[in-house]
């Protein structure tokens, strides 16, 4: 006499699914995050290279050794391009998050970072050529970020060959 069992109580599997869906919905709607931007302050990782640090740089004169002596070892040496990369990270904002979980909940504050890179190009004799400070787009792979910069540099420096009369 299966029909004697009330439909809503008889199917425990369906009840499990409904309960699971309810818990999932509570977690989903009880969770959230709030992004609060903060003004750029002190570097939280690495050492920021500021304009005042660069007064000694003279294109065509300053050697690689001198750069290392004044600024320290670079974070990255891009070997085949003979480029030094100094990297630092600043706090861009904070993310306030909260997650509901059963009878309890959890919340916290997470720093949202912004990564910077100071790139110095040297010629084949290890003499300083040029430099640029860049802000790495969030989510972009480091390799793609460097290649895009290099290609833009090349395009900028490219000069049309002189026309022959």
């Amino acid at each position, binding site marked *: *006499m*299966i029909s*004697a*069992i009330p439909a809503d109580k*008889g*199917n*425990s*599997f369906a009840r*499990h699914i409904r309960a699971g869906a309810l818990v999932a919905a509570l977690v989903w709607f009880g969770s959230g995050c709030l992004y609060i931007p903060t003004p750029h302050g002190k570097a939280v*990782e690495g050492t920021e290279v500021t304009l005042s640090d660069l007064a000694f740089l003279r294109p065509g004169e300053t050697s690689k050794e001198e750069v290392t002596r004044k600024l320290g*070892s*670079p*974070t*990255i*040496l*891009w*070997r*085949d*391009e003979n480029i030094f990369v100094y*990297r630092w990270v600043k706090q861009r904002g904070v993310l306030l998050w909260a997650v509901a979980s059963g009878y309890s909940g959890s919340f*916290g504050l*997470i720093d949202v970072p912004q990564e910077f890179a100071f790139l110095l190009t040297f010629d084949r004799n290890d003499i300083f050529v040029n430099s640029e400070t860049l802000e790495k787009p969030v989510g972009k*792979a*480091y*390799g*793609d*970020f*460097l*290649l895009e910069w290099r290609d833009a540099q090349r395009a900028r420096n490219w000069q049309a060959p002189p026309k022959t009369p």
Partner: protein
Amino acid sequence: MKRLARPLASRRRKKPDQTLAAWLFTAALVLGLLGSGCATSPGPPEKGELLTPDGKPRAVLLVRITTEVDGQPATAFSSMLPVDNIWLGLEDFSTGVTATPAELRFLSGETRKEGWTYLLLEPGLHYLAAHEPQSTNVFAYDARWSTCPRWSIEIPNGARVIYGGTLFLPGTGRTMILGPRQLVTFDPARLEIRDETSAAQALARQWFPNLTPMSVQFLKGHKLGDTIIIETPVGK
């Protein structure tokens, strides 16, 4: 009494099936989640895997990872990724100074328990990073990839199988509800590279007979804050 007994009896008959179905559904869901991302079956690489999708050659880097948790020997790699004591990552041109989890390959279940693993790497400079298992929030876990211990290796052109050494990575642990204590923090003063070339030779002969002779090139320790060297990938 008969009218009451019947529904109860039918309820008793039906419940085990429904409970079993619910358990099976849950088990399938959990296995699906655990299995995703670590579904590579153990064994040597297929011939096609020794080339990148754009035709560049890749070498086998064979390493062994051993560990101790609170002074007791422990397995680096258990049977499932979420309960492994050591996670490995790779750092190269594409990642900059933050390693990303490496695709670890294993020869067999037995060699996996012994800590042997291999990676398929293109010629060039690579940094191998070791990460403790995740015990914090995902943001702290991700941030740790840029500060965790690492070693460098330069894969030469034409290399086929390289033994990179045995990394001994001991640390302190925490008690788990199920299973042995799990590693939480490395002990940086005790990290070392050991030489087990003869065991690696035997494995290479058994599992990579077409790629031998195996060469030996130990990973070099890289201190946090030392310059990371990168090179433009071929063709970029």
